[in-house]
């Protein structure tokens, strides 16, 4: 039996190699219920490989991934039924309307949902009759989050959800993720935007060459760095260029 205090995700010494490339070299961590857990790292560090092993999309060479008490190795189908997944490259049937896509995916989980309600959660209810191919980049990402929510998942995996989005769309997605967390979901998120990690994540793991080289809260990681006597090269100003851009172009979403 699992209890509320048990970790929802346990990754233990996960290893995976593709030929000469070591994608995961003994990755271990735990994620607790209701937490937003970030995995940070440059491209090719092994974030996606690790996440896809947790999702049951890839098999690890060795090690264990346990979601909600179920070992992915033993029953990947049961794990897939419990989780919601946004892949790094998402694609849906381009000839279907958004409400039909949500409805279809809900049926794949044998879940009863109101497609329009799910779409309204990601702010796409006004586009329910649009076809997938007609959506903007930000709308596509929001749809893929809507589809990931159809089975009321215990864990939501978001793999680089804001890559390629403009600042407005990115900020709107952050609000969306915060709202989903408020409703009690556990979220695992990969990103290479530090600002995004700082804004959303309760704890972050920094991944490099298939290993976790740091794991703590964002504040603690910054404090640790400052304790070494680190001084930023540039004087920190009160606003960033991101703020300038948003101030000039407005915070409203364009689509």
């Amino acid at each position, binding site marked *: 039996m699992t209890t509320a205090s048990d970790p929802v995700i346990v990754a233990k010494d996960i290893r995976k190699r593709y030929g000469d490339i070591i994608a995961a070299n003994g990755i271990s961590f735990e994620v607790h219920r209701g937490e937003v857990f970030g995995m940070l790292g440059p491209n090719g560090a092994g974030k996606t490989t690790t996440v896809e092993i947790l999702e049951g999309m890839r098999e690890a060479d060795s090690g264990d991934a346990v979601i909600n008490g179920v070992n992915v190795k033993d029953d990947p189908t049961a794990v897939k039924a419990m989780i919601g997944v946004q892949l790094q490259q*998402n*694609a849906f049937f381009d000839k279907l309307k958004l409400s039909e896509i949500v409805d279809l995916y809900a049926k794949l989980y044998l879940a009863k949902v109101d497609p329009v309600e799910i779409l309204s959660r990601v702010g796409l209810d006004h586009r329910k009759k649009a076809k997938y191919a007609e959506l903007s980049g930000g709308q596509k990402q929001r749809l893929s989050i809507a589809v990931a929510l159809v089975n009321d998942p215990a864990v939501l995996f978001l793999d680089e959800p804001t890559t390629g989005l403009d600042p407005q769309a990115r900020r709107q997605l952050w609000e969306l993720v915060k709202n989903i967390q408020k409703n009690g979901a556990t979220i695992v998120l990969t990103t290479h935007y530090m600002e995004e990690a700082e804004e959303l994540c309760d704890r972050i793991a920094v991944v490099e060459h298939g290993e976790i080289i740091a794991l703590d809260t964002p504040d603690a990681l910054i404090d640790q760095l400052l304790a070494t006597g680190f001084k930023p090269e540039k004087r920190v100003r009160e606003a960033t260029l991101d703020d300038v851009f948003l101030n000039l172009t407005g915070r409203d979403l364009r689509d």
Partner: protein
Amino acid sequence: MKIYLALTVASLKMYFRNKQGLFWALFFPLLIMIIFGIMNFDRYNSPDVGVYDGANNDASRLLIQALRGSDEQELLNVTVSSLEDIHDELEFGSSRAAIEIPANYGASGQFAEIKVTYDERFPQERAVVSTILGQVTDAVFKEIAQVPDEYRVENAIGISESIVVGQGQGFKAWLIPGIAAMAIMQTGLFTVVFTLVRFKSQGVLRRLKATPIGASHFLAGQLTTKAIVVVLQTYVLVIVGALVLGVSVGNGRIGAWFDLTILALLGGALFIALGLAVSGWAKNEETAAPIANIITMPMMFLSGVFFPLSVMPDWLTRWSQYLPLTYLADGMRAITVEGASITTLGSELVGLGVWIVISFAIATKLFRWE
């Protein structure tokens, strides 16, 4: 079951929203059928005639040879067979005249009466056959006339003509089932290849892999869609073709539609499996398209879709008779044109069955999800 239904319904919606798919399934084959149908190839062929050789002697063989004409100029396309066959062929098949050579033909001192029956609906062919027959018997008579005088009068050849109204429907009727078979091949191969390869290269299939459903559910939904499309398409093509070109289907036998459905499903299964094999192998549309064309293009012309295998050289038909589309087109033609029942189609069913097994074996070997 519920999941499978949901996937089938979704995939049907996608299919009918895809205008390109509808074009290849219906408009393209209809266009070809109408173009070839109005061209009336019947006119340019030397007419088919059936000959019953009741005498079977040197004189009768000489007559048949004369009717055939020379290698340089074929007069009539003569098939020699039984009395019953030549009349069946005249009434239901492509034959335009049935010629009966009497047993006493060529026997000395006897009057031999050749009976000819024509199809009322083809006056042009009737005139051609009648003229040729008259000239040939004339010439043969003259040859015989060179023998001594005492035979000259009695040793005569007479021709009696009669007419039936045939049920056979010529090239137009022949064309429709061939085009319908070709359309099954196009739908099975091209729509399967293009949807699956696109879904694969876009990552749609990968996203489905992240759900608890098995790949087989998705595939079953896709295949059911295509099977439904193939059957509907066959109905539309045969009905529209029959209406536009004015021919009957299976001599009006209702069971012909059931038989056609079975054949369409068998043909569909065969070409869908080939489509799966190609989409399993190909990484994207650019590699898939040429492969699908290499498979379908030769069959379009070698399987007797637009013109009969009999116009092809023997060394080619020796191979092309075993092509999957040949079996399908021959089977559908037997049902719609000759009014045959599916239970009489031995070699066609066996041929289709063997090809289905081969195709599915290749498909399961080659199919990949990513």
